[in-house]
């Protein structure tokens, strides 16, 4: 018996699609589960327990103790920490955040606040230059040049009107017009010491080549001969060769020791590289000059009255010593006569020294005759680069003459110490650019070529930002310019500071 089509079709329930497909059911359940998980996790993150999760990355080593708990040490709730953050940039917000950092741990100084437009400084945030959350090994002090040039390339925007003529824009170090010439080397030497480096670095220190007045070891007292031998065997007839370290002593001990004359003049000593050695000590007459420039026992550095008293003390002769010497030099002359002659000569010489001041005038500029001081203050700067931090130790692989070529000029003929003294014997920016190369590719090529030392040319290699007194003063300026209540800010911060 056949079934009709309708009967056969009736065997199948065609409303199957009205039911929920198991996969669709599974998808819906999974979706609801995902929603629940997401909401729960988000709620946990917003609570104090989950707040460490919010961190955008590990803190640097100095702040790593706050990786888990301590966001409030730098962050204020709902206040951006950087001025370039969208949606929250204002002087007040950034200033609040700045103090959040400073009042707790860092009492940092400002950057020429008296020369910078207050609003510009007030909008500066620690985090704008010192980027955190970049991992434990990240150096907070490792700043990009952009941190500096964003103000320094547009001095009109940042410098006070009175300072704009003085401050030149800076874009980078390597380009010819990217960084101005060092101001410190463009001026005349303010020092009043008449000294010829060229003469002193000649063999025997003659005024002109072949001069018979060239100094030999036999001309020195025995105590000084060893010092200027530089480890060589002393031959009395040999001429004395000075090198830079004989007068310029490093500001840390043992830095110059072991440097041979040739090494210090031409090669430097890379093994001694150290950032601790920055400058050189001032030249001392007793240590560095007296070996050759004898004042007949008169102490150096005394004023007029002191020198007169010292001279008077030196006139009397030690008769026993004189007897020995007289028998050696003038055996035929009676003792009394010889002594009288000696006293006379000595008095004449020392008086001449005092009155004529020939010896003083040799190296110094005399003070007015009515002043207590015999000579003017030496005025030799201890540090030449006022706005930059220069470390000689970091440059120990560089020979002295690479940056100070003038003393090694070795010109023939007579030397005019007065003219030479007015020179600032430091090369300008071009000498730095030989090694300090900004472009990474060029630097790598030079390194591979091995023709010269190479170094980076970042702003922070030489310059520092925090040079002013502490920041509280700046907040005052900011509050005045921004017009918000400083007292309320202080109250708020003091509440936040309490842990």
């Amino acid at each position, binding site marked *: 018996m056949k*079934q009709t089509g309708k*009967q056969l079709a009736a065997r*199948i329930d065609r409303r199957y699609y009205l039911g929920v497909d198991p996969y669709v059911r599974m998808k819906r359940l999974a979706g609801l589960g995902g929603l629940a998980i997401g909401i729960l*996790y988000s709620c946990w993150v917003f609570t104090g327990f989950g707040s460490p999760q919010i*961190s*955008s990355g590990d803190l640097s080593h100095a702040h790593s103790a706050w990786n888990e708990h301590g966001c409030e040490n730098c962050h204020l709730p709902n206040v951006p920490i950087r001025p370039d953050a969208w949606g929250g940039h204002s002087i007040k917000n950034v200033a609040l955040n700045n103090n959040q950092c400073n009042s707790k741990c860092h009492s940092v100084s400002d950057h020429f606040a008296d020369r910078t437009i207050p609003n510009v400084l007030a909008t500066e945030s620690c985090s704008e230059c010192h980027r955190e*959350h970049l991992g434990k090994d990240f150096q907070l002090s490792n700043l990009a040049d952009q941190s500096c040039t964003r103000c320094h390339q547009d001095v009109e925007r940042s410098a006070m009107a009175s300072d704009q003529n003085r401050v030149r824009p800076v874009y980078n170090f390597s380009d010819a017009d990217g960084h101005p010439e060092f101001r410190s080397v463009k001026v005349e030497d303010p020092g009043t010491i008449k000294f010829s480096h060229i003469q002193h670095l000649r063999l025997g220190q003659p005024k002109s080549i072949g001069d018979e007045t060239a100094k030999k070891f036999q001309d020195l007292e025995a105590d000084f001969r060893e010092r200027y031998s530089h480890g060589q065997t002393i031959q009395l007839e040999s001429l004395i060769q000075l090198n830079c370290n004989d007068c310029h002593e490093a500001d840390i001990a043992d830095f110059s020791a072991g440097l041979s004359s040739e090494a210090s003049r031409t090669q430097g000593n890379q093994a001694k590289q150290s950032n601790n050695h920055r400058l050189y000590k001032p030249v001392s007459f007793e240590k560095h000059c007296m070996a050759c420039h004898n004042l007949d026992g008169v102490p150096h550095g005394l004023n007029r009255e002191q020198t007169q008293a010292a001279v008077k003390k030196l006139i009397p002769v030690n008769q026993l010593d004189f007897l020995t010497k007289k028998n050696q030099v003038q055996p035929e002359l009676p003792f009394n006569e010889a002594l009288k002659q000696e006293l006379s000569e000595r008095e004449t010489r020392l008086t001449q020294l005092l009155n004529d001041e020939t010896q003083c005038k040799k190296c110094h500029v005399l003070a007015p005759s009515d002043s207590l001081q015999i000579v003017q203050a030496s005025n030799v700067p201890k540090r030449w680069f006022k706005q930059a931090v220069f470390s000689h130790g970091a440059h120990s692989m560089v020979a002295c003459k690479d940056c100070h070529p003038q003393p090694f000029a070795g010109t023939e003929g007579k030397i005019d110490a007065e003219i030479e003294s007015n020179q600032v014997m430091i090369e300008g920016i071009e000498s730095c650019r030989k090694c300090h190369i900004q472009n990474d590719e060029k630097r790598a090529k030079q390194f591979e070529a091995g023709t010269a030392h190479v170094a980076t040319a970042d702003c922070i290699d030489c310059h520092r930002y925090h040079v002013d007194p502490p920041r509280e003063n700046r907040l005052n300026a900011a509050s005045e310019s921004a017009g918000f209540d400083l007292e309320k800010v202080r109250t708020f911060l003091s509440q936040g500071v309490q842990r």
Partner: protein
Amino acid sequence: MLLGRNQKLHCVFAGLATLLILGGARWYAYSSHIAGRWVGGGSPVGLVLGTIAASIIGFELLLWPRKRLRRKKLGPTRIWLAAHLWFGLATGPLAYIHAGYRFGGTFTSFLMWLLLFVLASGVYGWIMQIVIPRWMLGNLPSETITAQIDDVLIQNSLDARRMLTVAYGPKPEGLTKLTNLNEQSTSYKGNRTVRDPATGEYQQIVVGAVQRRGPQRGRSAMNTIQEVDPADARIVWNEFAALVEPFLLRSIPGLLVPAKKTEQEKLRTRQKTIEYFSLLRESCSASSASILDRLEELCEKRHQFDVQRKAQAWLHSWIAVHASASIILGVLLLTHIILAIRYM
């Protein structure tokens, strides 16, 4: 959705996504060069790219509710899907650039990994939806509606019973009990075919549903059952009750199928099924061949249905994972936006 079709549409969206990524990367590189360092998510470029990526993620999530709003005519599904695929892929690079090529802290790292997981699951699903349907088309000719597999198997089992009843008469006593099935259709009592001695013609018995729509459209399958050797009745019924029907009905929810596991091994694979029915044909007369062929066909269908189920699982189960991860991503994205604004 197959990539082979709508290539022009995919090219358009792929091109847009590529332009978006390249443009964002170029802008970011320029900004970082100006700043002298890799800029972060709070910088202008970081914020713009982050906003774009978040907007795309929001658009991706709208695909699900869109299904509920089909009547609103929100645009062709293929366009939505193409945009979903290519813009979705673009979110990965955009988010990575937005973050300054860093994963950041715990929360942001989790968010980034979650995004990557969502992208990976989406790509997996995309591949599945290209590969599996084609494979099924070629390898599962008996494919049916997955949700109806159990019903079809029940119907097949009932049809087989009718066929055997018509051919051999009712099930002999003493054999394995048949599974208790509820006949949902009108009862049908098949008759045995008889040969009309006068005309010599056989009465035809229709087994299975016949579709007749319009002028003889559709497929009709009619098996003619000829005179069979009654001696085969016991053998065939026994094998059907003990092995074939339990195999057809195994794992159907709500049915108690009397079957021994050791017996089921005989039909576990296609090869074993072929061997089993070869042996059974040798045990029966040649007249039972068509019956046995039909039973073997049903077993083959069962095999195909099993494979179809697995294929459907591969094809559709990923969506639960993808949907769940996407929802979590959406919620955490909102959290990230709030936190970023708070601490920017």
